[in-house]
């Protein structure tokens, strides 16, 4: 387990008092509860879109292994992928196999095919690629063949082949369909886009998740890096220190995970130093409603 400084520990305790649904896990990482089970999940996870699709390039595979090592050392939990992401699942399996400890790992992938019969084979192939016996979370990617796959997932969950069922979208225009799916299907997790400049999810999806007791996973927290590029030239506001932000990635991630209906965010990165920055967002004090408003006003004025 990674050492934690006294300052970080005290700051983390302060986080607990700021947001009542937060708790602490390994390495001082804040966690939130999965509503359907009560299980705690670190608020900062990891996505793998683009970054882990390195094929057979052994040098890059070993670099990604270092990224995952840093993730677990900092108390990371959820790793999310998809068969759509090229070789990402195979590379994640390679990296996990190289690491001596993966305590806290929460495996999440997706089924992404228009045919139900193919979905079964695809999910079994994902288990082989990740080298896991079962996934914690299996999600229907972009609602593709939702009805067909949901039957399989309900069956698999009953058999104990997966622990949770989820749905995902990365298309803002599908929020109405997505909300309907959240209401009508036996969903434990909902994954969608939400960030400081794209707050559409606050209108329907986040309130619906809170009402229905569905855990939420936030993708594209940096809008594919565009937000970091946009803000990097500006200094952080002085008051960012009050919520223990040392850099823009932490500022952007703390904004997301401090929303009461957000369970975790899954930034993707290919670099160890960026991973360490991201994981820092799960430590220390979190913004309350007043500071969240200040954060929005500040970035919109830049």
């Amino acid at each position: 387990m990674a050492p934690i400084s006294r300052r970080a520990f005290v700051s983390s305790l302060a986080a607990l008092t700021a947001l009542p649904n937060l708790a602490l896990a390994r390495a001082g990482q804040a966690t939130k509860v999965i509503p359907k089970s009560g299980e705690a999940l670190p608020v900062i996870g990891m996505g793998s879109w683009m970054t882990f699709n390195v094929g057979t390039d052994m040098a890059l595979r070993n670099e990604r292994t270092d990224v995952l090592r840093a993730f677990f050392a900092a108390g990371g939990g959820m790793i999310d992928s998809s068969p759509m992401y090229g070789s990402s699942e195979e590379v994640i399996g390679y990296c996990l196999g190289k690491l001596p400890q993966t305590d806290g790992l929460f495996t999440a992938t997706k089924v992404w095919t228009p045919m139900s019969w193919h979905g079964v084979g695809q999910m079994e192939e994902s288990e082989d690629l990740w080298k896991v016996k079962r996934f914690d979370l299996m999600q229907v990617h972009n609602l593709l063949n939702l009805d067909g796959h949901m039957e399989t997932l309900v069956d698999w969950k009953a058999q104990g082949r997966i622990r949770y069922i989820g749905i995902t979208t990365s298309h803002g225009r599908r929020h109405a369909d997505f909300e309907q799916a959240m209401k009508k299907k036996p969903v434990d997790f909902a994954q969608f886009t939400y960030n400081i400049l794209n707050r559409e999810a606050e209108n329907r999806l986040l309130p619906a998740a809170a009402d229905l007791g569905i855990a939420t996973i936030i993708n594209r927290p940096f809008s594919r890096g565009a937000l970091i590029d946009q803000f990097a030239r500006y200094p952080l506001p002085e008051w960012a220190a009050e919520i223990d932000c040392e850099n823009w990635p932490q500022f952007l991630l703390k904004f997301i995970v401090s929303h009461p209906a957000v369970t975790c965010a899954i930034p993707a990165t290919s670099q160890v130093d960026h991973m360490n920055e991201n994981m820092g967002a799960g430590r220390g004090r979190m913004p309350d409603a007043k500071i969240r408003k200040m954060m929005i006003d500040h970035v919109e004025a830049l």
Partner: protein
Amino acid sequence: MIPFTEEIYWNHFALYYDAIWPIPLMAVLLGVASLALLPFSRRWFGLGVSTFLAAQWFWTGGVYFLLHYGQLVWAAPVFAVVFFAQGVLITWSGAALRRLEPEFRQSPTGWLGIGLCILALCIGPLMGPDWKQSPLFGVTPAPVALYSLGIVLLNKRRGPIYLLPIPLLWVIWEAMTLWMIGSFDGFFLSLADTFARRVEILSGA
């Protein structure tokens, strides 16, 4: 949407060349020879160039897309089928119908054709960080598409226009890929830099 980063895109070329070396070198030599022999075009020349061109499309479809690019992109088999189809079209047009007979012509179309063939030979190192991390002539899709467009424009008679859509679409797709992974600006800056250096050399500056 492109499921890899700029770093991964350039690196995958180096791994590909390690696996197939010295095929890229042989392809470049054959490409240079095909242009050098253009002014001496004879009947057999059209057949030779058609065979060389079709071989590039078949190789890129089968070896590059299916065995290599397919690790990174789920749609690679679809691209492979399209490249095989173009290979069949070229074989049919060049070998069966003998309608592909390039020759050197001093006309705007001729110069454009020559320019595209030369660009196909040189474009790789202009695009990537170094020659090995870049799309090389004859074995990767962008140069294959550019060379094909050039050869059709150099045709004696009016070129078989049904050979144009697939290469044109691929050039557009390649440009979109570069733009989406953030390499588009770098490519044009590199091209402008090379052009400026050539002008400097020619003007004796």
